[in-house]
């Protein structure tokens, strides 16, 4: 049996270039680790037949048609779901930073792909929004494999270049999404926290569930520099040459202050805020999603 769990480690994952494969390995590694998924058996509605191709699951073979016509047809179902999910992936320039093997964008892409895969597997409708200071690409939520492939394609092709403006994006999305659902924001959130919160408040006001994956690089969290360094500012910041050692304390303090404001206000707005380091295993993201999904499901049944 393949040890899928190892694919939860970003370092291993980085060696795999295909995003779809990444997503599958992440999710299956995660599922395998769970032993039994409590979210299986969601009801589905038949949609259409298609001809059997080798490799299809024989469970979905329509034996009745086979009995009648001696032909092999596979039953295809339309997922019955009560969840519309948008994955909002930050493609601003700051996401391109990497200190290790994966950039924040790579890491965010893996999370987005994994979540999309998981959602598609669970017949939840998943859409994709790529944004920086404006919405660059929107794929509405669907829950089929083709759609999943389209999402992967968009993610793969995205190049982080410009500045972020999460507030503007949030307001945009609040106007754009009519149906209540789940918004998963994958970003380093390098923006004014109060502006970010204003945007998020609007989304919450529209009844959206929000999960925030605040992806930060390992170096951004630890600031491990010990020699004279020229910091080339991403997102149009000026370059700075400085000795980083005496700055570390104040830097970490500023960062901590930023995350504390975000975390506290997210809690207040009932937004699920999760800070993830690019050095961490990816199951954190999946667990966060599933926990929220479960909560939403329960709310929906009520």
């Amino acid at each position, binding site marked *: 049996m393949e040890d899928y769990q190892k694919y939860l480690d970003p370092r291993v994952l980085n060696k795999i270039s295909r995003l779809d494969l990444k997503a599958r390995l992440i999710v299956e590694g995660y599922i395998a680790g769970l032993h039994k998924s409590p979210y299986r058996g969601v009801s589905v509605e038949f949609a259409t037949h298609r001809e059997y191709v080798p490799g299809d699951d024989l469970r979905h073979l329509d034996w009745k048609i086979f009995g009648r016509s001696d032909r092999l047809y596979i039953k295809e179902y339309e997922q019955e779901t009560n969840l519309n999910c948008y994955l909002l992936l930050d493609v601003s320039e700051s996401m391109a930073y990497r200190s290790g093997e994966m950039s924040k964008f790579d890491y965010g892409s893996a999370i987005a792909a994994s979540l999309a895969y998981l959602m598609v597997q669970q017949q939840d409708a998943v859409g994709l929004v790529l944004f920086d200071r404006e919405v660059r690409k929107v794929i509405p939520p669907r829950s089929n494999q083709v759609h999943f492939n389209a999402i992967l394609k968009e993610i793969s092709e995205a190049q982080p270049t410009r500045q972020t403006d999460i507030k503007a994006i949030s307001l945009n999305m609040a106007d754009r999404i009519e149906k209540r659902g789940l918004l998963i924001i994958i970003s380093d959130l*390098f923006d004014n926290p109060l502006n970010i919160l204003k945007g998020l408040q609007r989304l919450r006001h529209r009844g959206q569930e929000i999960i925030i994956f605040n992806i930060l690089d390992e170096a951004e969290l630890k600031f491990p520099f010990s020699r004279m360094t020229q910091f080339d500012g991403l997102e149009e910041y000026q370059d700075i040459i*400085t000795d980083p050692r005496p700055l*570390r304390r104040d830097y970490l*303090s500023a960062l901590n202050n930023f995350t504390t404001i975000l975390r506290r206000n997210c809690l207040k707005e009932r937004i699920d805020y999760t800070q993830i380091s690019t050095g961490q295993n990816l199951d954190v993201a999946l667990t966060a999603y599933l926990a929220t999904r479960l909560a939403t499901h329960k709310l929906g049944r009520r």
Partner: protein
Amino acid sequence: MGSFINPGMLWFAVAGAIPIIIHLLNRQRYQKVRWAAMEFLLEALKKTRRRLQIENLLLLLIRVMVLFLLTLALSRCYFRESPLVALGTVDTHAIIALDNSYSMDYKTGNKTCFEQGRKIALRLVDSLKTSQGDRVSVLTMARPPVGSALVSEGSVDLKKVKKSIANLVVSDFRTDLFETFQQAKDIIDQSDKTRKIFYVVTDMQRVVWEMPPTRQQEFMELITEVSKKAEVQIIDVSKPEPANFLVTKIEPSRKIITTDTEVTFRAEIRNHSPHVSNHAQVNFIVDNFPQNTTTVNLPAQGVGTVSFNYEFIEPGPHWVEIKVEADNLAIDNSRYFVVDVKEALKILIINGEPGVESFEDEVIFLRYALNPSRSEVEKVSIYSLESISDIIFEETDVKKYDLVILANVSFLSQAKVKNLEEYVSAGGGLLIFLGDKIDRTIYNELLYKNGNGLLPAELGLVQGDQSHEEAFSLDRLDFTHGALEYLRPLKSQFGKMVIYEFYQAKTDPDRKDVRVLAWFNDVDSSPAMIEKLFGKGKVMLVTTSADAEWNLMPGRKLYVMVYDQMVMYLAAQPFGFKNILVGQPLQLLIKTHEYAKNFSLVTPQQGMSTISPVQIQDKGFVLTYNRTERHGIYTLNRMAEAGGESELSEDRPASPMNIGGPAIFSYLAVNVDPQEGNLEQIKAEELKQLYPNFKFRKLGELSKTSEAEITKPPPSSIWKYLVYAVLFLLVLESILAQRFGAFKK
């Protein structure tokens, strides 16, 4: 002014730039990071920038200071004056005083003290730099100076100065420290240089540094002032444990030396060494011919005496040399003494009462007392007597006599008195006896002249008993006087003298040139013998008569002895005129018959100069010679004029020594000052005790002076403070770096 012992180490000052270079290089060598979280970085930077700048600057400054101060410490930085002056220029005025007194001629090994001192002086000049405006003044320390004591004054031409120093030689003089410091002070006062160093290159004689009590305070103030205005460095070039024998004194037994009479020369030999010297050999030389040799035992730092008897055969000038065996300082081993040997002492007796009968003659007793022989061939006395009547006295030239005696002379005129005054004033002797023939009014008027004349006292009335029933005697005599000093053993005999009559003489007790030698036992204690110094001569007044008319002295033993001594005393020419110390001027009175237009003077080094007598009012002709710079015998010759002998030379006494050669007129003995021969050294500690405010640095203890020692700067502990400062800064740097580092972590 700041200077460095190891200036080469200053190159390490460049190391002070190392922290700055490291800092700059570090700024150049940096890693590049594309950074996203710029906002937090900028916020941190904004907070810490100012603090960081200060901290970095402080650490950088400390590190630079550490290296800089360390370099200064290694280069042994010292300040010549106050550190504030060190900030200014470094121009130096070196004043080098080189001791050239004769003690510096002391030689052990292959160099004399002076040669060593001269070498050091040359090295001192070498150490100066004209490029930074250094100047040098060089002065010699012996006085009076040979030429000028100031060899060079504030010269910048070091080559020329060195040449002048190289040409310096030892003099025969003593060191005069007072004059040397005085001169140095004048130079220092006039110098505009920042640093002034007064180098005293000397052999550290105790006798030189220990001033007589009368001058000590003044000297102390002077040297203290000099040491305040300049750095004083005393460079000792003396030799260890110096030993020196010297002849300090020669004394003849007679005041007047005549031919065919034995005279004893007594010499004092001093041993300036810590060791006893037994059987030190002493030579007796007369007119450059060795006569006798003896030995003497000399205690350590003590004196011994030797005596040599000698009988001069020829009259005229002679010289005696007494020479102790050779030692390391040759110059004072010999001492010279010049004597003028007379055939006889010429005495002119002016008889105021020549008698037809021998015993009526006023001076018959005196003549017999002084020269009992009537034979011209047999010489029994050193006196040659000539007696004349007071009437013809005026026509006689008294100047050729050694002594004139006025015995009961009544006929006195102003011309006679003037003649006598000139004679006495020029160094002649005059003995005056009184008696019944004299007129006290004339005597007081012509001879006493209210104290300005020849007569030592104003004459009063005749005292005593004309009937000769009552007599007086002498009850008090001054045996310390030169005329009576040998008569002390006969003291009791004077009370037995019988004097019937005498003139009362009133002396002025305030006058220092008048001295009473003997007093009568009358109620007034009237003076019996009175001396007056008149010019260069002496006058003696005996208030009673020379014959037996007023007393019963003639015929007595005491009469002979008293007047012999008195005549000897009055006629003796002090030897001192011709026996002088180096540097003292020669002044010789020329009698008329001795006159020549020019005299030649031959120095001990056989140098010759011509001198001419100069006429001085009332004193006749005087020969003067000032350049008695070298010890030894100077020979004075009368020079024959172009047309033959001097017209006045007829009276010149024929001397066998003159035959076939230049006419030797006189010798002159020039001796070194024996005090300079005491080589005992004074130590620096003693000097500090003696002159506590005199700040100096002494180098070269006991001739161990090396170049490195001399050029070594004054002991300064500044470099130590620099090391302390470096250590402090290192500790501070560690603490601060740790503290600042804590922030960084």
